[in-house]
């Protein structure tokens, strides 16, 4: 009878050691027990800010203090290229004559820089909404 009790106690001790070993393995610094690489989901790469193809939608909320609300900007209608075949008698297209237009280049750069640098805080409103 005594030996059976000793066996029970030995079994319990082994179970205790096994359990502690398993538990310690789970209490690693990342706190998950799973491999660190599996803890986080891979974030999508951040895309460089480029001018969007269409203007932003104007919010419909009316401004206060007498400000005038701009009419909603409409997306520039890009005329779809037609795929009509040139008539047989049509002259072959000639190369576009390109004139020197450095001031136009500078203006385009200026407007492009302004477009890409418009100040924004895209998460401002959502973070404010989270605060009770």
């Amino acid at each position, binding site marked *: 009878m005594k030996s059976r009790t000793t066996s029970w106690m030995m*079994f*319990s001790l082994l179970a205790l050691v096994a359990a502690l070993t398993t538990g310690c393995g789970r209490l690693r610094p990342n706190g998950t027990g799973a491999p660190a690489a599996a803890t986080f989901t891979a974030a999508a790469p951040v895309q460089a800010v480029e001018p969007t193809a269409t203007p932003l939608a104007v919010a419909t909320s009316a401004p206060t203090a007498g400000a005038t609300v701009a009419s909603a900007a409409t997306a*520039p209608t890009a005329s779809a290229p037609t795929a009509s075949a040139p008539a047989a008698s049509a002259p072959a297209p000639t190369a576009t004559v390109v004139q020197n237009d450095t001031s136009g280049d500078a203006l385009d750069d200026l*407007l492009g820089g302004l477009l890409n640098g418009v100040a924004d805080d895209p998460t401002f409103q959502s973070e*404010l909404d989270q605060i009770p």
Partner: protein
Amino acid sequence: MNLNPLSRKLLAGLATGALALGLVIVNVTPVYAQDGPTSTPSELTRPEIRQQRLERLYQRAVNWSEGQADNLVRADEAAATTQTYIDEKKAAGLDTSALEAALASYKTQVAEARVFHDQAVTVLNTHNGFDADGKVTDVPAARLTLADAGSALGQARVRIYNATFTLRQAVKDFREANGLTVEP
């Protein structure tokens, strides 16, 4: 301790069972991503955390406003540069009427953006709910200040963006129509 064998077995079994139960609990404890000092919803209800978040947002609104003021200065420069460009091309005998219309529209939208921007600046300068150092003194008023400032800054931003986008497209169209750009 003088226990009979049955009691010893019972105690050992109970200890093992309790340990196993504990491990099960460890296994099913939810795991939260450790991706920065974000506050959990329960933390946000703590007054000091909420005030810190509001104060940070106030500073962000001030920064946003300053960046937008710079945008408006640059928008005026862009309008002046566009006018110079129009004058140059008109003197060269080109039809600049479309470009002139685009510039007029641009100026109108930038003026509207400036109205919203000025509203935001006024709200931030008044800083209801915040003291002069940007510390929260009244939570509801602080929230309202941030909501008003953020909304006005957002309205101004959309107008600056759309105006610039449209004017740039008009300049591109003009240049293409007059053979001033290299065809892709």
